[in-house]
């Protein structure tokens, strides 16, 4: 840690922690938090939910993906103070009665992981991706963005999941796991 400059000390004096309420996996957490704390650090260091992973911390890898009101979000580029009152779902919120949910089970069945570091982000991203697909969202792989129906081809799946890197290269298994869990029909 370098010593803080006068300028930084002056800034610190007016930037006090603010009380916020983060609603995570259905439970409210009342936190005193500095505005500079990312949602990722709030989850891991303040609420001690360490399932969400810090990969690049600059929005390039997708390991920190969580769901905010159902929309997949990079928690590393989000300031926690912006998410007061938003319903946040992390990987810890998916299991029911101690049993993994369908997508978690499918990742195991289909070898959708090796080291597992990107997996929480992959799974949250896939859930958000399916929400988008079912709502009719086109992608860069969609031949005609004005068409009403889109089929979830392998090319579409890869494009829609491109924000999540897997350095082990489990992409084939990840696609298979998503298909096993969601049986995607063409959207309407």
């Amino acid at each position: 840690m370098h010593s803080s400059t006068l300028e930084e000390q002056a800034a610190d004096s007016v930037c006090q922690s603010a009380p916020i309420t983060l609603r995570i996996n259905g439970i409210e957490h009342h936190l005193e938090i500095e505005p500079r704390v990312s949602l990722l650090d709030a989850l891991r260091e303040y609420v001690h939910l360490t399932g969400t992973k810090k990969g690049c911390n600059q929005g390039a890898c997708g390991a920190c993906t969580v769901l905010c009101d159902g929309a997949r979000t990079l928690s590393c580029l989000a300031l926690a103070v912006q998410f007061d009152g938003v319903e946040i779902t992390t990987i810890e919120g998916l299991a029911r009665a101690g049993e993994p949910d369908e997508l978690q089970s499918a990742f195991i069945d289909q070898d959708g992981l090796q080291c597992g570091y990107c997996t929480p982000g992959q799974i949250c991203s896939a859930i958000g991706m399916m929400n988008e697909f079912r709502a009719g969202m086109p992608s860069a792989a969609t031949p005609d963005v004005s068409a009403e129906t889109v089929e979830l081809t392998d090319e579409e799946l890869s494009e829609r999941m491109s924000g999540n890197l897997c350095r082990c290269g489990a992409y084939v298994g990840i696609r298979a796991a998503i298909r096993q869990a969601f049986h995607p029909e063409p959207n309407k």
Partner: protein
Amino acid sequence: MRNFAYSRASSAGEAVNLSSASSHAKFLGGGTNLVDLMRENIERPDTVIDVTRIAPSAIRETENGGVSIGAEVRNSAVAGHPLIRQRYPVLAQAILFGASGQIRNMATVGGNIMQRTRCYYFYDEASRCNKRQPGAGCDALHGFNRIHAVLGTSDQCIATHPSDMCVALAALEAKVCVTGPHGERIIAFEEFHLLPGATPNIETQLAPNELITSVELPPMAFARRSLYRKVRDRASYAFALVSVAAALDVDNGHIRRGRIALGGVGTKPWRAHEAERILTGAQAGIETYRRAAEAEMAHAVGYRDNTFKIELARRVLVEVLSELAEKEVRP
């Protein structure tokens, strides 16, 4: 990251007032660029004003038959909106070719327009950069400049504007509506971003404490025949080396007019007036498209590692125009 004061504005007027009351405020949208720049110490605001919850103007049809998009609307909401997908497919595509699903869910329209360059030297505090520190010099000019601009450059800066969405907005002749301490005004999209010239640190027309409130797309019936093509180093989730946004008004092999902008090659989203001039009133066909591409890139200047972009831009433009002229368009 240095600390800062955070406040959430409930209206554009309140945001402007909060900004005016501090010495170095920044408006915060989705944070996908600003939070990263703050973490890297490139942006050092004392106050951050969250403008994502100001009264939503959303996406609506305007009286003249165009479409208005609120500045706080998320990029994915624009790309998924039926009005945009049907009437301005080039804009839906441009957004979908940018970043990732997560980032498009977070990024706002205003924030996308205001994003900073991804020039490595701009991001690296140990390098010289006139954009970051006026008068310091530019390490990109003689450095590794494969991703840099070939149009609109100066001897002070060759950084590209990184947005895909803005390339489509330039082609569609959008208008940027802003509000500030002295009231509201409307800026033509083409004039919003500035060439670097001798002051690459000044990137837009925005005055201090002015906030983008919405973007207006004019009615453009022929924009149903439009598309975005992006060439990059990997198939997805990468910035453009070259991109083309184009709309073509063509009838029986005769081109009435075209609207074209280029990305990845310019220091700002590059409206291709030279190419448009060649197309107006010309016969549709590959010779016309080649002449248009030649005219647009005639003044391009390549640097050590990016000269390939000049020929690449010509070829992509010819390809896009050929495809557009043949495209089946639903009424």
